[in-house]
């Protein structure tokens, strides 16, 4: 099939390389933006990047990109050759960023399957003006102009396939009336018509031309096709046409997997094997990156209904490479598989069959501990494979600070600390947008204008610190500015107006609680809406994004001295260490890290308020007390009469410096837990964050401590 070959498309490579070049170019430019001029390595780098992009875009025939990059290359050519002194540095920085933005925009268009049709003339004109200015400067200085930077048209071109849009997959079926003659030939007419528009297709039965009996099969079961193309459903139906005898035509979109699976019996087992083989084949191909050799693509004869087969033996082993890029989907599925493996391991090791008295398990235990060791290592490896440094995400912030602060006329520097901190790829995807928001907020609302800063006796240059660190199983990402800070009275008043506080006085709240109000939807204290922030959407989105990965946003501020936003995110998402416990007939799991201590329950420790709330006194401290069986409406176990039994155990849990006591019936043990989301058909229950499968196959619910605490406060 065709997709065996197109894993590293010429177009993809062009897009990838160009964006990489632009990215590193942007970083260089931003790094040097505060200096008086670019140093030689920077000039060289920009020149080379533009040269490469110019060349490759010319081969790809994207003329506007070629023109723009050529112009910028020209400018840097003169700067490199003549070192003129009259280059307005900031202007040049802006020009470079403009060009980079323009090209990035065009690349995005190409990526989305469109044509890069942006108008380059404006930018080229600006660059021309700038270039003339530099040139005259060179001449004034009495120096000779270096020879013209001549543009040589490439002699070779690449035309990308037409309509590079997204490929869709369809399942189509044609059913003929029973009295139709030669339905096989009629079916083939449709196949023929479709061949014109599809990229790849398979059909069943596949011997419609060579086997006359296939006509009967078609009438009985219908004629089925799997289609890969870039056309819409309607166009396919059009192409199939309306030959006489057709009873009905069904065309439905399907997944790539279904397409690749081809036509197989709807039998579970073989499909799985087929898939495995496919994966393997692909992986092997990944490794083989040898160059094609003439003769590789000789067609060895075709089979009907199938793609062309090549003579080349695909499974030659190639030279080793130190890096391979892997589809993230494969990584995710590997991670899932390892999760399943951990469960399967528990199923084996805790198998009830082993509990037969008098069984000698010495050898089994040895083997079991070896197995546990390997699965643990496997988890570590997959975790480390998914880890990526935050460097890229942080570098993007550099650009945002530069852009926004220049537009607002503020002078702001960004300090980055700990950008090498590694976090799960998933987390990176989720924090990039929130971070951008926080940074924009800091630039726009946090840092004051220059005049205000001077009046307040501060350094006229504002400072934003972006820091990441790894501590106690959590990632901390901190955005700190030295601006005017948050005004808690203003926030309180606003919260009151929005009806968030009821009639509780401001003294009822801690500072942090007041600051948290700004994360509610529709909350913005900024009177004026600016281009960058102040619409009151934002902070609540930030919080939602962070909560989606189990994190939390904490806000701290000193009025007049600045504010600090801290994102706390759990390092790993999928496999945790947990304590399994029993409440009534249900099993629950609590993350081991959250557990402070276990206390045997006694009635004397319990304090009951008139309102029915219960507290627990422990060494002179008072903690809120929750009975899980009441909270989740579970039948009380027989031993505890009225749920007030003496047999239970109290677990003291901590979350973000808040403590809570939870009453349970029985502890079972500690084990590794594969966190699975609660299926969507179950309503979201506060206090539960997920579920997992235990060794005996039963389901245990994972307690969400933050949810328990906040749920308790609300009562």
């Amino acid at each position: 099939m065709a997709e065996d070959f197109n894993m590293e498309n010429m177009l993809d490579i062009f897009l990838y390389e160009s964006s990489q070049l632009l990215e590193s170019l942007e970083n260089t430019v931003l790094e040097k933006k505060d200096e008086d001029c670019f140093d030689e390595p920077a000039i060289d780098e920009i020149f080379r990047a533009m040269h490469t992009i110019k060349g490759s875009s010319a081969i790809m025939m994207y003329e506007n990109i070629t023109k723009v990059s050529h112009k910028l290359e020209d400018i840097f050519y003169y700067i490199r050759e003549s070192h003129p002194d009259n280059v307005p540095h900031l202007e040049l920085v802006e020009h470079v960023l403009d060009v980079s933005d323009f090209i990035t925009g065009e690349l995005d268009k190409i990526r989305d399957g469109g044509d890069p049709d942006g108008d380059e003339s404006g930018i080229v004109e600006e660059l021309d003006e700038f270039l003339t200015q530099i040139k005259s400067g060179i001449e004034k200085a009495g120096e000779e102009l270096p020879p013209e930077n001549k543009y040589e048209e490439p002699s070779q071109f690449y035309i990308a396939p037409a309509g590079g849009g997204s490929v869709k997959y369809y399942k189509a079926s044609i059913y003929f009336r029973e009295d139709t003659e030669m339905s096989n030939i009629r079916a083939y007419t449709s196949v023929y018509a479709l061949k014109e528009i599809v990229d790849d297709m398979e059909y069943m039965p596949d011997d419609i031309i060579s086997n006359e009996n296939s006509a009967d099969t078609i009438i009985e079961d219908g004629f089925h096709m799997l289609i890969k193309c870039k056309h819409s459903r309607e166009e396919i139906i059009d192409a199939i046409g309306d030959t006489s005898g057709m009873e009905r035509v069904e065309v439905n979109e399907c997944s790539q997997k279904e397409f690749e699976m081809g036509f197989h019996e709807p039998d579970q087992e073989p499909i799985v094997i087929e898939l495995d083989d496919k994966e393997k084949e692909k992986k092997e191909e990944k490794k083989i990156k040898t160059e094609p050799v003439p003769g590789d693509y000789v067609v060895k004869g075709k089979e009907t209904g199938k793609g062309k087969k090549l003579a080349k033996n695909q499974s030659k082993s190639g030279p080793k490479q130190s890096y391979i890029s892997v589809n993230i989907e494969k990584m995710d599925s590997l991670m899932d598989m390892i999760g399943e493996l951990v469960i399967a391991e528990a199923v084996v090791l805790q198998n009830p069959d082993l509990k037969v008295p008098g069984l000698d398990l010495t050898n089994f235990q040895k083997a079991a501990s070896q197995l546990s060791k390997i699965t643990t290592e496997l988890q570590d490896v997959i975790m480390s494979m998914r880890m990526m440094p935050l460097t890229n995400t942080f570098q993007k912030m550099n650009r945002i600070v530069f852009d926004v602060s220049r537009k607002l006329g503020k002078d702001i520097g960004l300090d980055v600390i700990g950008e090498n901190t590694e976090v799960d790829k998933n987390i990176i995807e989720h924090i990039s947008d929130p971070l951008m928001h926080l940074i924009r907020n800091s630039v726009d609302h946090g840092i004051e204008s220059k005049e205000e800063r001077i009046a307040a006796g501060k350094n006229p240059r504002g400072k934003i610190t972006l820091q990441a660190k790894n501590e106690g199983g959590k990632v901390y990402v901190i955005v700190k500015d030295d601006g005017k800070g948050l005004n808690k009275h203003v926030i309180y008043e606003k919260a009151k107006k929005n009806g968030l506080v009821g009639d509780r006085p401001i003294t009822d709240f801690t500072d942090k609680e007041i600051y948290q109000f700004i994360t509610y939807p529709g909350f913005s204290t900024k009177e004026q809406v600016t281009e960058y922030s102040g619409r009151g959407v934002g902070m609540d989105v930030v919080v939602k994004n962070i909560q989606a990965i189990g994190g939390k946003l904490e806000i701290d501020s000193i009025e007049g001295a600045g504010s600090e936003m801290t994102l706390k995110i759990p390092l790993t998402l999928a496999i945790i260490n947990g304590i399994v416990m029993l409440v009534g007939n249900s099993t629950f799991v609590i993350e081991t890290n959250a557990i402070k201590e276990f206390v045997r329950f006694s009635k004397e420790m319990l304090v009951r308020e008139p309102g029915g709330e219960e507290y627990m006194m422990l060494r002179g401290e008072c903690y809120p007390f929750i009975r899980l069986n009441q909270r989740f409406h579970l039948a009380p176990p027989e031993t505890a009469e009225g749920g007030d039994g003496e047999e239970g155990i109290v677990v003291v849990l901590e979350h973000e410096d808040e403590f809570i006591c939870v009453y349970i019936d029985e502890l079972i043990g500690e084990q590794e837990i594969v966190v699975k989301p609660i299926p969507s058909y179950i309503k979201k229950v506060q206090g539960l964050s997920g579920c997992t499968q235990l060794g005996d196959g039963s389901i245990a619910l994972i307690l969400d401590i933050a949810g328990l605490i906040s749920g308790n406060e609300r009562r």
Partner: protein
Amino acid sequence: MKILLAEDDFASRKFMVNYLEKYGECDITVDGEEAVDAFIMALEDGEPYDLVCLDVMMPVIDGYQALKAIRDIEKDHGIAGDDRVKIIMTTALNEERNVKKAFEMGCTVYCGKPIDVEKFQMILKKLELIK
């Protein structure tokens, strides 16, 4: 202009012929070997082709082999530089290594299938094959 087309798939061939006939006399071959034969024939008759369109996946010998053969024959005849025939590879193989290899071996244009007719025409203009 004189055009040689090598393409084994009927639908593609028909499409290409329809398209190219506007620009000149178009000879059709269905595999790589025939294409090379036709090229030699034309060269010996003193009426060489101006444009060769080669499919990559073809029976007998593939597009790469044909490309190499044609460039070798030209070398043998002392044809060099801009006098060499313009060769357009037309193929659904769009992997970078395929394209690079073809460029290395001296093809003029590498054109992905399905063919972007607009750009194809632009290229023909750029190569000064049509006006």
